[in-house]
């Protein structure tokens, strides 16, 4: 059994509201009891509430598998990079260092690496991964290209990521504004790390008896 070829994973960080539902759903899964394979990251916690769900991107050239000295990380024909094979993993942590997306996690207590495998027990029989089933804002979406085109007409799925001179194409798609993706159909991750949000001043001029009438937000 394998993941159906027409079903894809789409991540839309814009829609993430940081509710942690995906983390809780992932934790409840029986294949990795009590541990969440999905990370919910704050982009810039001091200045923003924006969060990003991080699942395994299932690279076409998985760097984690490239660097594994124990030959423990394997990829099935449907493009899903599987979690470390238990008898082989030596818990060296190379994959943790190497993954450009920071997905694999080392569990020192049981001497194994565990990572998101797109809920292979579910997706291989055509079901949605746990996180995609619970996401209330559909920041995590699992379905066909037609469905996503219909649901997000303003966005375009992109699966190219630039890390300096390394280009990675993934099986998981990231949603990008349509006009933006037409000019640059990839995510330049290293450049985005340096990027700061535009300075914006917000001024509220409420009418009538507003309790926050004097509030002035200056960014």
């Amino acid at each position, binding site marked *: 059994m394998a993941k159906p070829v027409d079903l894809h994973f789409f991540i839309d960080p814009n829609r993430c509201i940081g509710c942690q539902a995906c983390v809780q759903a992932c934790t409840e899964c029986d294949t990795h009891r009590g541990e969440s394979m999905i990370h919910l990251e704050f982009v810039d916690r001091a200045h923003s509430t924006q969060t990003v769900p991080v699942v395994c991107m299932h690279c*076409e*050239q*998985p760097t984690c*598998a*490239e660097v594994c000295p124990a030959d423990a*990380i*394997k*990829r*099935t*024909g449907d493009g899903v990079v599987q979690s470390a094979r238990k008898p082989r993993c030596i818990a060296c942590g190379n994959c943790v260092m190497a993954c450009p997306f920071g997905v694999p996690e080392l569990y020192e207590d049981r001497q194994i690496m565990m990572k998101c495998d797109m809920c292979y027990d579910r997706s291989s029989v055509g079901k949605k991964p746990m996180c995609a089933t619970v996401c209330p804002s559909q920041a995590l979406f699992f379905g066909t290209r037609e469905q996503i085109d219909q649901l997000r007409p303003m966005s375009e799925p992109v699966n190219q990521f630039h890390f300096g001179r390394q280009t990675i194409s993934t099986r998981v798609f990231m949603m990008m504004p349509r006009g933006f993706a037409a000019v640059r159909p990839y995510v330049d991750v290293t450049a985005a790390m340096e990027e700061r949000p535009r300075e914006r001043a917000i001024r509220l001029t409420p009418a009538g008896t507003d309790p926050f009438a004097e509030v002035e937000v200056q960014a």
Partner: protein
Amino acid sequence: MSDDPRDPIDARIDSPGREGLTGTAPASLYLPLRDVEQVTRAPDGRPMDAQPAWRTDFPIDWPQDAYVERREFMKFMVLTSAAFVIGQLWIATHNWWRRRTGDLEMVRIASLSDIAVGATRTFTYPTEHDPCILVRPAEHVLVAFNQKCTHLSCAVIPRVDEGIIRCPCHDGVFDLTSGRPLAGPPRRPLVRVLLEVRGGEIYATGIEERTT
């Protein structure tokens, strides 16, 4: 080679497209096949043939990882068979060596007057790490066994009045005079110590390992 059956067959073995062993199979049969599930491309983007050999040895794709080559399988079989042969030779040498070292020496273990009828005694034979029991169930009967139960090496305890030797660990029961298993998990009889009485002294002269 043309697929049209009406075309005359080129008899030469080295003709293009007929590189097979007998010259009858199409050459494509001998080309390495690429699995449909072999999806991973190397990071430098070059084809798999241009990649170093270790990429084929340590594939990232699951089906390739699980694949066992004929040569690999043969190597495993030959080495395993060789290991068995060497093991058998080792056992044979060991047996031959043990036979060459000769009989166990005769050791005095007790005086006949020391042990009353129905009494038992412990001793060690042939080394001090082999605890044994000496039993005198009747006036003219003397038996001795190694104390290790043949099931899991617990120390067995003789019960002379019941005519048995009992192992307390798993309730194994042996016959007192022959040492054969009567009940419980043991399947082999106890190791018997051969005895000899000379001039009122009891000597152990050897051991008898039995399978039935």
